[in-house]
């Protein structure tokens, strides 16, 4: 256990920060610890958590994805057209929505792998186009989403938030896929060192395409869940998801340099971000002062992660 914590130190620090923030949130919340409060908290966390998992896959292979938010928005809009009617139609609609997101991710991957475009530029351009599509499809928020499905996915099961169950299931599935399959290992390998992976016989192009496609899939999943929570399609929700997903993965110990981190970290980072902003909402601070304090708490959380530099015995390790 201790060696596990030592190995996953940045993740352990993030989890500790999350626990502290969550306790503060519960103490400050007028309704205290209740199924209702925790369910709302988990739903908010799941929304950003799915987007952060999307960001994680691209960051893992040493990229950065500015189109995560736009894909969330586009799939939310698509879902607001398709997620209604019979149960067959619902399944078809969900599959179509996820396919749209996956295709968007695949296009990003193709631009980066075959077009040799730097990820930040490629996804800035594609993100802009995807937002545009969302706006064309639905210029103003609206549409209808099946309420029974929404109820089933956004409430709780015997007091446990459904969203939390879904996220935990996704995390378990993902960590098996990442740590115990060859595709998972090659994702880390490509992120750690592309030339070394190539020399090892890894199909680098294919692996990177897969990373971007999986990212698109999870962004679409986030978009679907937005539809469940809000019951409408809104083309303008993108921007906050893009930047927050990047902040979340960094908070959760995922290295922007690639090859390091886990989906669990991305989700923990998302929960930290969401808890901080909820904390502000109930803090009683004047609304105009809230962004400043939100940033302050965020900076403190990041500073915790940097504590490791004081334990370094060889100064060369600072640069590794």
């Amino acid at each position, binding site marked *: 256990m201790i060696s596990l914590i030592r190995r996953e130190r940045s993740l352990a620090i993030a989890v500790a920060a999350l626990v502290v923030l969550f306790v503060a949130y519960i103490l400050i919340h007028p309704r205290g610890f209740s199924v209702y409060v925790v369910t709302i908290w988990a739903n908010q966390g799941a929304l950003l958590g799915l987007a952060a998992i999307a960001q994680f896959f691209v960051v893992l292979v040493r990229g950065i994805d500015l189109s995560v938010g736009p894909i969330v928005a586009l799939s939310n809009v698509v879902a607001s057209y398709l997620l209604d009617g019979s149960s067959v139609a619902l399944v078809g609609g969900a599959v179509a929505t996820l396919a749209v997101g996956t295709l968007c991710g695949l296009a990003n991957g193709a631009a980066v792998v075959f077009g040799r475009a730097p990820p930040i530029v490629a996804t800035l351009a594609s993100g802009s186009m995807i937002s545009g599509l969302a706006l064309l499809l639905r210029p103003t928020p609206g549409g209808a989403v099946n309420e029974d499905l929404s109820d089933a996915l956004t409430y709780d099961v015997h007091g446990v938030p459904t969203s939390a169950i879904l996220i935990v299931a996704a995390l378990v599935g993902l960590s098996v896929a990442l740590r115990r399959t*060859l595709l998972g290992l090659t994702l880390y390998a490509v992120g*750690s060192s592309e030339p070394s992976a190539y020399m090892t016989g890894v199909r680098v192009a294919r692996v990177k395409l897969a990373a971007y496609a999986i990212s698109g899939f999870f962004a679409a999943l986030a978009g679907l869940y937005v539809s469940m929570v809000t019951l409408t399609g809104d083309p303008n929700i993108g921007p906050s998801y893009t930047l927050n997903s990047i902040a979340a993965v960094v908070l959760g110990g995922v290295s922007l340099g690639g090859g390091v981190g886990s989906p669990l970290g991305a989700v923990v980072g998302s929960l930290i971000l969401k808890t901080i902003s909820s904390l502000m909402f109930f803090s009683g601070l004047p609304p105009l002062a809230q962004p400043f304090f939100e940033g302050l708490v965020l900076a403190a959380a990041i500073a915790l992660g940097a504590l490791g530099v004081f334990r370094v015995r060889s*100064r060369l390790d600072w640069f590794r």
Partner: protein
Amino acid sequence: MTEPLVRLTSISKSYGGAPALADVDFACAPGLVHAVLGENGAGKSTLMKLLAGVIAPDSGEIEVEGRARRFATPRDAAECGIVCMFQELSLMPHLTVGDNIVVAGAKPRFGLVGRGDYAQARAALDRVGAASVSLSARVGELSLAERQLVEIAKALYRKPKLLILDEATSALTSELVATVFGVLRELKAQGAAILFISHRMHEVDAIADRISVFRNGRHIETFDAGARNPDQVIGLMIGRSLEELFPPRRPPPGDAPIALNVAKLNWGEQLRDVDLVVRKGEIVGLGGLDAQGQQQLMHAVFGVLRGVTGEVTLDGRPLDGVRPSRAKRADIGLALVPEDRKTEGLILDMSIADNLRLAALSRAPFGVLGLARDSQTRLRTLLDRLALVYGALEDPVATLSGGNQQKVVLAKWLLLSPKCLLLMDPTRGIDLPTKAQIYRLLRDLAAEGLAVVLQSTDYEELIHLCDRVYVFYAGRVARELQGDDLTPDALIAASMNVPLAAGARA
């Protein structure tokens, strides 16, 4: 003669008009260790890259087991059973040792990687003598020697039919090299072919069954090991003899002033009560098995480590609290040439000129470069002295050969005219002529009064170049050897911390 495993027929390859290989025929047979010799630029690396699928030939044919093949990627070559270990290590630093090895494997059942795969990885590591390396350790945290062992284990894990080792043992001590050679002999007995590239002649003598010599992109001659004596082999490679490799020793008088004095140096478990003296004009070697404290001593003196206790003085002046940024100042005058020139010694994408200027940055008036009028002339003089082979000073360092990159590292620090030069394995993976140039330069610098500390894994270098050698064992100085005591047997015995007689028998 057995049917060759791999046969190359009239292969040519040129880079931007400059031929790297010209009309080469080459074959290697199963069950043999085939050494490929030649100085840098002779075409060895190009040959290996062709076989490993990294580059494709301009013309000519590659046959594997009688069938013509075209390799588009290293993966294609690996599928034919050709596995290559390059000098530039092919490990992923953030992954664990186990993952690094397993990821190289063939497609597992259901895409799942299981316990059995990791057990095999463990077995491969144990086989090459890396039993102390944990599967769950991150590769980025391992020493260079450990990484080379992991690299060899990774190659073994893939069960190669043709294993190509390009300077694969360059960071290993002779003890580990012997273990690795044992494994190579087993592989050979199982019918694998092994291509072996090394600049250490005694390693080639120890393992090779057949030797091919390349020069200027041409295959000069192939002969059975032992058919030529070492002098003839070197003659084929460069047209020079071994005596020319090491310059004559010119030790300073015994009462020369002390330059570097280290007393009671301690750092955790890794350095214990180390005492060491280097006089002006002396070349002092640091020997021993891998990671016995030699590297840490260098880092401690240069101010890289935290929490070091003890006394270090240079020209009688204490070096307390020195950092790399201060150590190089004119009044202190300490320079360190690091172990891994690709990551710690150079910034590969920057030009030769910019790399040279970097170390001199703090010396420039007001931090503005190019103001000191004599700097350009000094630069040219120094580069001429080093016989650096380069196109233009504005070319990126990455375009230079390994030997020339190392010369740039040396030049970078020599520009600061240090009083004491710390060198960590400066000739690792460098060809003989360049080695000879570097040795001569070090000897000349010492004659001019520079104190040189040389840490090396190459025994020949310690014996023939150094005036005195400190042999490290478990963080302590186990023995100090000089003059007639400085023999291979004494060095090996001291490295293993056993009396001389026992060492000689080992």
